[in-house]
């Protein structure tokens, strides 16, 4: 059975202007309990790779540059 790509809107937004992942920061990726954030090879910035978020906020609270915003996942809003 083939696998499809079903789009999904993710709750966590990273302000790429503020994110300093290209300078070596990985704090949000490190602390996320669900391990759903990654640094993009393309942009060198953090982004939400997996739509598996508990909207718990360590990523936002611990980011040194206030680049992360956690929204409520659309299905719960």
């Amino acid at each position: 059975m083939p696998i499809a790509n079903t789009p999904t809107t993710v709750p966590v937004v990273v302000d790429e202007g503020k994110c300093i992942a290209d300078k070596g920061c990985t704090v949000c990726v490190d602390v996320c309990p669900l391990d759903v954030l990654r640094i993009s090879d393309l942009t060198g910035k953090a982004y939400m790779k997996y739509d598996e978020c508990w909207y718990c906020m360590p990523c936002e609270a611990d980011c040194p540059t206030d680049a992360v915003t956690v929204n409520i996942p659309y299905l719960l809003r």
Partner: protein
Amino acid sequence: MDDLRAGLNEVECDLLVIGGGTAGPMAAYRARKKNPNAKVILLEKANVKRSGAISMGMDGLNNAVIPGHSTPEQYTKEITIANDGIVDQAAVYKYAQNCYGIIEELDQFGIRFQKDENGEYDVKKVHHMGTYVLPMPNGDTVKKALYRQLRRARVLISNRYMATRLLTGKSGRAAGAIAVNTRSGEFLVIKAKAVIMCMGAAGRLGLPTSGYLYGTYENPTNSGEGYSMAYHAGAKLANLECFQINPLIKDYNGPACAYVAGPFGGYTANSKNERFIECDYWSGQMMQEFYNELQSGKGPVFLKLNHLHKDTADHIEHILHTVERPSRGRFHEQRGTKYSEQMIEMHISEIGFCSGHSASGVYVDEFARTTVPGLYAAGDMASVPHNYMLGAFTNGAIAGEHAVDFAAEVDHDEFDDAAISMEQERVLAPTKRDDGIPPNQIEYKIRRLVNDYLQPPKVTAKYELCQARLAEVREDMNTQMMARDAHELMRSMEVASILDCADMAAHASLYRAESRWGLYHWRSDYPDTNDSDWKCHVLLSNQDGVMTCEKKEVAPYIIPIAEDEKDAYYKQRITAQA
């Protein structure tokens, strides 16, 4: 990151603690304090800095037994009654005697507890009988404070390793665990003389009403591995049919926190603005009334604060929106709901296992020992009922100290190397397929079946249908589940635990042919509580590959319960409503 790599490393230690949330760090810390020569490894699926049920902190203690406010005897009695008599009191009593010392220790770690103008702990009454609730003004710093202590005590921390099976030695003792790296799929074998499991609730069992797999009441990293691993290691699990079901803010699915709001005059009301239960302390009996009201013509149910002074309502809102689940404020903002203006719609949570809130856990005695020698359990996954965060800390401390002594007396138990290659094969199977079903779809199906068939009211024929459907899903999981990278591999292993927990939930519930604990175990075809046959524990275990239940007598009470007290938690409905 996430690309699969082959690899197998081996380490040896005296004591392995699995799970770095609440109980685990305390267990590891206390073990090192008691025996500074012991090599203690703390293994964590996520990152100890922010893992577990209290990743962002906690707004208070729900069950603090503080001299001058309550006594260990009183608390033991209250929990025995709240849990319908099915309590081995020794563990609860020991908790109650030790928890004040833990509060003082946490205080030294820099976690503050609310004091009144005389410098006394400002304890509030929420329970039916006693006074045990203590606010924590800087509760958002709990994890940081714990982490500092772990560093100071030089506990060896391994983050992003997910334990998948325990190793059992040739003499039947716990001998360590096998774990897989969640970002590379490499294996780690940890040989240990004793193992403490602190792996949290089974919080990804039922599906939240939103349909979002991760919108659970519990932190969804707590997907029931502890229960599943204990089962496969031959440990006995107690009263799994006593499900966790909690009242919560609808859709947001976070706690409504009557514990926070209650002392200020907030309460749970129906759509007619009427209070319908006297006591907002979470128990199965209270949940039954909550459920009845939801289904009645006066439903649904709301958290009511809008009768309070605006400053008071705003103050409660502030606490609720900053500590345990801080995104709650955003949820209400988007909906346009203000606590001082509207009542907030509530609902009941999906089902789960969690003795932190109810009583479903791996069976442990008052030293946190499971039925497998050298294997301990503490926190939400261990069977000490209603033990919450302070119970996790206290029982974690008890486990750490006992286990480190045990480890000093024994050698590493030899185990069969074949266990490792077999486990590697099982774990990696989904990565060997290039066609199949992704774990999220299998998980969705299991959890949808749990909601359709296992949620109370429990009906025998529906349960049997569920077992048949779950067996089909197991076949799919074993033959078709596919993982394309290490992250999906972690999710596949979680799915396997979730399915084990669903099977255990069905099996244990069918065995207990009575109703007990209010909504938690409401069997419509056995609606009455039957003390003569069922005033006992139900222990579930793996007997030669067959899931088996047995009865176990409740240990003789240390604190007697008078005949006219034992139903106190059933007299909660307000009869004459204004």
